[in-house]
């Protein structure tokens, strides 16, 4: 039990006759960043909200640090910090008031320093409805962290944030992990999930389609390496020869993209081809399959299988 901060066992959630989550099981370990990925309607937010005590499960069992979210909501509220997908605060409430308000209910001193840390120092007395989407989300995160909870739930934390704020938020998440905080992250952003999480579960139509570390997941896919090439005369896109190891070839913008099972054979062959056709290489990129590629592979398999995954 000590090794499980979040425990989800045969969890099921129905909305009327619609099965939103269908008997999923997973656990999250101390200090881990665990990502829930999936397309819209996959059941990510439903799972998060049931763990947060906002919705009642239809079946199975859930616990956070041994606390049942439905039976012990008060106890749970002190153990978790939550950044909701839609940050709901009264329109007239200021960040300063919100910090005092929620910290009072958590029985901790207000953490106004978090407002400064998350770039809201000059917005302390601005009403919530006047804040930008990014500022509202940063405030929501500051409030989630204010009582120093051991478990944090982040639902699409970087949605609507600019690049700088996104980097800042990733730094905060890393700091939290370094301090031993366990984090559950629901996101659409595959690059973010690949960069930030230790393990992910990919949800599809309420079921876990794949689970593991981002490296494990990408390794279990087709394993095709992506070779992207741009040249002056675009000779490759005009047909070209078939190159060794190439399974699939597409053209996108100025690039010809090859999916290869053996990049070591493919790349020299392509370079020879360009030399032979007196075409000048502009850009060459060789990338291992990303989590996004693996995600698309899984979701496309699901579509082609008629959604029976």
């Amino acid at each position, binding site marked *: 039990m000590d090794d499980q901060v979040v425990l989800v066992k045969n969890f099921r959630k129905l909305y009327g006759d619609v099965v939103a989550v269908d008997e999923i099981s997973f656990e999250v370990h101390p200090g881990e960043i665990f990502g829930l990925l999936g397309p819209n309607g996959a059941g990510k937010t439903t799972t998060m909200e049931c763990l947060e005590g906002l919705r*009642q499960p239809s079946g199975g069992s859930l616990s956070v640090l041994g606390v049942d979210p439905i039976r012990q909501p*008060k106890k749970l509220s002190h153990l978790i910090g939550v950044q909701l997908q839609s940050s709901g605060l009264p329109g007239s409430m200021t960040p300063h008031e919100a910090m005092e*308000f*929620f910290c009072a209910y958590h029985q901790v001193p207000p953490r106004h320093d978090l407002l400064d840390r998350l770039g809201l120092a000059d917005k302390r007395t601005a009403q919530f409805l006047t804040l930008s989407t990014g500022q509202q989300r940063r405030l929501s995160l500051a409030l989630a962290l204010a009582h120093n909870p051991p478990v944090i739930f982040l639902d699409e934390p970087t949605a609507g944030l600019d690049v700088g704020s996104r980097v800042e938020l990733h730094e905060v998440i890393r700091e939290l992990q370094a301090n031993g905080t366990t984090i559950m992250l629901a996101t659409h952003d595959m690059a973010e999930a690949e960069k930030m999480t230790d393990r992910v579960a990919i949800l599809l139509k309420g079921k876990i389609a794949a689970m593991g570390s981002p490296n494990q997941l990408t390794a279990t896919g087709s394993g095709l390496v992506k070779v992207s090439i741009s040249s002056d005369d675009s000779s490759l896109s005009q047909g070209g020869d078939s190159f060794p190891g190439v399974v699939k070839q597409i053209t996108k913008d100025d690039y010809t993209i090859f999916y290869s099972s053996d990049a070591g054979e493919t790349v020299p062959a392509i370079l020879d081809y360009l030399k032979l056709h007196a075409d000048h290489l502009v850009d060459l990129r060789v990338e291992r399959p990303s989590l996004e590629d693996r995600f698309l592979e899984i979701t496309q398999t699901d579509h082609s299988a008629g959604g029976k995954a």
Partner: protein
Amino acid sequence: MTAFFHHFMYDFRTGLRDKTLLLMNYLFPLGFYVLMGLLMTGLNPTFAPTMIPAMILVAMMACTLLGLPNPVVESREAGIFRSFKINGVPALSIVTIPVLSSLVHIILVSAIITVTAGPFFKAGIPVNWGYFVLVLLLTAFTLASLGMLIGVISPNSRLIVLFSQAIFLPSMILGGLMIPSSMLPASLYRVSLLLPTSYAMNAWRDLAFGLTSTFDSRWALLVLFTSGVIAFVLAIFLFNWDNKNQRSGHSPFLALLTLVPYVLGAIFLGA
């Protein structure tokens, strides 16, 4: 207790900061009071003796029936209650605090009306201040609980308007504010006993101002108290954190229980 205090102070400030609430809590009732003071006292000499309670009741209804319910629905729709729940704010605080802050707004407006109506409009002054305050607090609690219950059971703002106006408009006409209930035809008098204001005016006239009343004011106090408690308890019982996640098994029609004391009053006191 600190949390409750912070929450209360925030809610009270919102009643002054939010333009709609400021209008309902202060600007509309005080504007209406000045207008009625200038017009009605000259047109209708019988208005002056009960001007203070009548104008206080208008202020109470504006604050509790027109002002209080809407933020409840808006907060639920905007997911504000979900944030509150996650952060350990109890449902009891969410229901209780707006009722209490409404009481404070009502007391402030009532004080302004009570202090100024005599000198400016030659309004009747209470002869028994203890009963005056008792009826004021009891009626304010009852109407605030009723307003909260309307907010709790209304799925959207349109229904709030419907429910609130179903009490507000008849109360203005039949509730004893503009003309004494004793002057109403028998059938309308019975209908007027379905409204909280009729009981409040009866109790105020009799106990606080030494004027004639149409029935024993102890019944008026009992009806107000009972319906206020029923509305308050039902507001807590029927409270929902989330529009999309309704608590099952609690029908909003239970709110009709609040009307039981008034129906009994209309049956037994309207004869």
